[in-house]
């Protein structure tokens, strides 16, 4: 899915952290977000996912097109991997076929009956990433997806992204490693650091009150 963001201004809490964000992602393309810690990568992803309303600007794709893969795994520790995945499959209305694809993509079959509490960090990550396949949504928003994944599983993840892109999907990935994806461009988020001139319009307390 192709979409575009135009002069997007994003907030984290009460602070404006990004200003005038503009980019275009084509179908089958992955956009890699780069930038130092605190530059606003997570904020941008949360805004695109529809969790944090944008202060200004527009995105041509609705939040319903986005599959948000957060930093946190979002797994219920007391439930098994199969139960966790089945819940998300039901919540997104995707069927058994997607479930099978997700399990295969991240090699979760041996872990199906294990409780999420008993998984290692990397195994949890795999289960969390498998959720993206279950959403059936065209745009993946990934926040440091490879944290605690070993080399083999990183490759497995890269393959899953490739499959997604080949099917006409697109992705925004905040990551520091090279995933070896075919169509990628890099977006340096630090470019959009706020200049401090803007805020006056949105926040009446940005200037002296008397």
């Amino acid at each position: 899915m192709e979409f575009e963001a135009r002069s997007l201004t994003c907030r984290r809490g009460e602070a404006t952290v990004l200003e005038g964000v503009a980019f275009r992602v084509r179908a089958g393309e992955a956009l890699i977000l780069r930038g130092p810690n605190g530059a606003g990568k997570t904020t941008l992803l949360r805004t695109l996912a529809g969790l944090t309303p944008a202060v200004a600007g527009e995105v041509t794709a609705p939040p319903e097109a986005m599959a948000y893969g957060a930093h946190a795994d979002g797994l219920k520790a007391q439930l098994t991997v199969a139960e966790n995945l089945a819940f998300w499959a039901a919540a997104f209305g995707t069927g058994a076929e997607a479930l099978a694809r997700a399990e295969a993509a991240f090699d979760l079959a041996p872990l199906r009956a294990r409780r999420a509490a008993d998984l290692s960090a990397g195994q949890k990550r795999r289960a969390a990433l498998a959720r993206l396949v279950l959403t059936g949504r065209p745009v993946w928003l990934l926040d440091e997806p490879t944290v605690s994944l070993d080399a083999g599983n990183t490759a497995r993840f890269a393959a899953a992204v490739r499959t997604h892109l080949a099917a006409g999907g697109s992705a925004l990935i905040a990551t520091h490693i090279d995933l070896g994806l075919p169509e990628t461009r890099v977006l340096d988020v630090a470019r959009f650091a706020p200049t401090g001139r803007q805020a006056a319009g949105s926040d009446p307390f940005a200037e002296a009150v008397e």
Partner: protein
Amino acid sequence: MSIWEYANPRRFMAASGAVQPYVWGLAILLCATGLIWGFFFTPEDFRMGHSVKIIYIHVPSAFLAINAWFMMLVASLIWLIRRHHVSALAARAAAPIGLIMTAVALITGAIWGKPMWGTYWEWDPRLTSFLILFLFYLGYVALWSAIEQQDQAADLTSILCLVGTVFAVLSRYAAQFWNQGLHQGASLSLDAEENVADVFWIPLVITLAGFVFLFVALVLLRTRTEIRRRRLHAISLKERLA
């Protein structure tokens, strides 16, 4: 020029600064007149003796205790619908005033109840619902101070105010319903409009007006403080992030 112009903090600060002295003057004048008149120049009530003098603080404070909440409700709605910061801050400013007024109404009611009904506390529906109102104020103030992000706090307290209003009204009727079973004719609570003679009525109205002006003056003062605090908050936020 519409009233919404004052939703801009700058305009509000200028306008409220100009108006404030007059409101305070009126409040002091009316309160002093009403209270001195009521306290020194009214006769004894044939039934209640001089204890009737408590009416001059009890009724106005009770009046404000309820109306402060309504003011907060309206201000919260304005914030939720039109996103005017001053409105949210005015609601925040009014809450402690309402809290104190409710406390005053309760305390003076209890003290008055002792000579009249022979007990400090009576689970009269009116007293009960004031006690519950007091709890609502406490929750509202506590929620405001618990949340660090100011816009978020304004949103959440506004939602609480809306829901709380519905439940406060429900509680009022619940209290009325609940006490029926226990004792009927305990309608000792004083209905000011109906059974107060003229001699007491005139100073009461003056004091009431005085309290209203006092409320307005306090809301103006406290809203100004909240606006300044909000500005300080914005400055420190900027410094933290820089």
